[in-house]
């Protein structure tokens, strides 16, 4: 079997965006062997971004989010069953139902889950939600449709902000509580986070920053929350949007480099063992991965980006069925989008990998701009607000490590284009929301133990 990479047994764990796209790509790459996809959710692969957008706005229902396939991956689907471990030596995936699946090559695409409210009793109150699965989306949409008096959103990251935006659009009162100085600050830095705060307030969000929620109250049903500044928010629905946790626990005994920031892999999506030795039969893709990127000092990136799951799945699939010299690196630039408060925010590169920013086009006042991020004199990221068409130009600057501040290029160059200001990216540990791009350094998550 080792002789013919296009044949044999491939198992994919995680039946969502990365898992599906990898399965399709394996067939496109000519894999004719047996393919099994294991997923613990009892559904065909579905799309998550609409959960905080169309589903809450009533434009789509949570049970119509299945991803359209690009081609039939001709796989066996083991859905509703968890993988509980991997035996790297025996080359088997262990399943919760006692079964085990042999593989020649394995792809891990187990993604992330919502970080729950730290107090389980409070988190279990009726009316308290997280938002990651279609069940979460259906439940929250139903509650919002019943027109609660007020919704409390804990965490001002992208998901929390989108939920708040949807609430305002539905005409519902909403409070956002964020521990950091402003919403989105962890992902976009100081300047744009101020715009985000203004947008929230202009749209009628009761935005509380620099506070933490200390307790959720209620007797069976959620009735309000206590804040660290001594105030109380009366609300009947609460959405906990505190970021994501990587689904790696099932690999704890596996010997793979799996830790809280994901599973470390090389640029070819091949997983590392806990000793930092690269495997050649275990691959990783999507939100659960952590991979080095040459444009960002070979720092290990952990992304929670739709586009990354798609791109990395394609590279992983290619490399699973091709010999070393024909393998490809995953070098795609991180790209992210978010729609909230009527604005289309898109980012390319790694905004948190920056020391300074300039507004290269547009202005904060116009609510239409392109902000360019630089690190040590070169362009590392760009964020556009309602200027998506400009993004390709900046993508090119990042890919070519162009000098920062960027040279004149855009026709409508802003007056502020030469005025570099600190990017003011805070330490993520002071925020309620995690950045959706994390630089995780070269440090392994687990200490080596002597063999």
């Amino acid at each position: 079997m080792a002789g013919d990479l296009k044949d044999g047994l491939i198992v994919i764990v995680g039946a969502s965006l990365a898992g599906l796209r990898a399965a399709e790509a394996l067939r496109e790459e000519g894999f004719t062997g047996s393919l099994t996809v294991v997923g613990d959710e009892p559904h065909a692969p579905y799309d998550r971004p609409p959960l905080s957008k169309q589903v809450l706005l009533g434009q789509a229902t949570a049970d119509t989010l299945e991803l359209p396939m690009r081609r039939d991956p001709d796989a066996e689907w083991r859905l509703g069953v968890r993988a509980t471990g991997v035996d790297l030596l025996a080359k088997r995936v262990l399943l919760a139902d006692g079964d085990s699946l042999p593989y020649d090559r394995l792809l891990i695409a187990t993604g992330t889950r919502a970080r729950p409210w730290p107090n389980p009793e409070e988190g279990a109150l009726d009316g308290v939600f997280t938002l990651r699965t279609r069940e979460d989306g259906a439940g929250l949409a139903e509650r919002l449709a019943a027109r609660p008096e007020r919704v409390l959103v804990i965490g001002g990251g992208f998901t929390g902000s989108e939920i708040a935006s949807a609430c305002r659009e539905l005409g519902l009162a909403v409070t956002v509580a964020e521990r950091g100085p402003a919403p989105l600050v962890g992902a976009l830095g100081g300047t744009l986070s101020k715009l985000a705060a203004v947008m929230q307030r202009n749209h009628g969000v009761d935005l509380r920053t620099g506070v933490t929620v200390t307790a959720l109250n209620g007797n069976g049903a959620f009735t309000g929350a206590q804040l660290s500044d001594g105030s109380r928010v009366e609300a009947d629905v609460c959405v906990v949007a505190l970021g994501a946790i990587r689904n790696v626990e099932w690999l704890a005994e596996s010997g793979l480099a799996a830790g809280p920031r994901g599973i470390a892999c090389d640029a070819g999506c091949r997983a590392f063992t806990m000793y930092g030795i690269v495997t050649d039969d275990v691959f990783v893709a999507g939100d659960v991965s952590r991979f080095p990127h040459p444009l960002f000092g070979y720092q290990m990136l952990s992304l929670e980006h739709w586009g990354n799951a798609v791109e990395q799945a394609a590279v992983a699939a290619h490399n699973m069925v091709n010999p070393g010299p024909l393998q490809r690196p995953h070098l795609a630039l991180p790209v992210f989008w978010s729609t909230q408060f009527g604005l289309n925010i898109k980012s390319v590169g790694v905004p948190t990998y920056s020391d300074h920013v300039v507004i290269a086009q547009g202005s904060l006042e116009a609510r239409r701009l392109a902000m360019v991020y630089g690190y040590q004199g070169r362009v590392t990221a760009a964020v556009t607000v309602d200027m998506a068409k400009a993004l390709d130009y900046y993508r090119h600057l990042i890919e070519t490590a162009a000098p920062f501040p960027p040279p004149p290029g855009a026709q409508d160059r802003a007056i502020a284009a030469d005025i570099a200001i600190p990017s003011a990216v805070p330490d993520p540990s002071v925020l309620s929301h995690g950045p959706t791009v994390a630089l995780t350094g070269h440090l392994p998550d687990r200490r080596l133990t002597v063999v």
Partner: protein
Amino acid sequence: MVEMRTVVDLTRCQGYAQCVFLAPEVFELHGEEGLLYATAVPDDQVERVRQAAAACPVQAILLGEEVSTGGR
């Protein structure tokens, strides 16, 4: 016939809005350039969405069936 699904690769979409003109019941601009869309495509809209997918300048629209996961 199974109901069709659509997904838009919004990392690629540049808000050209061709899709909105061709299938306004499925695609909608939210603000200046934020695209929202219905994920379930009713039978009588399939042809329009197909045209929108063909017309999208960045090929961001995918129309298709959900994966058949067998026996469930």
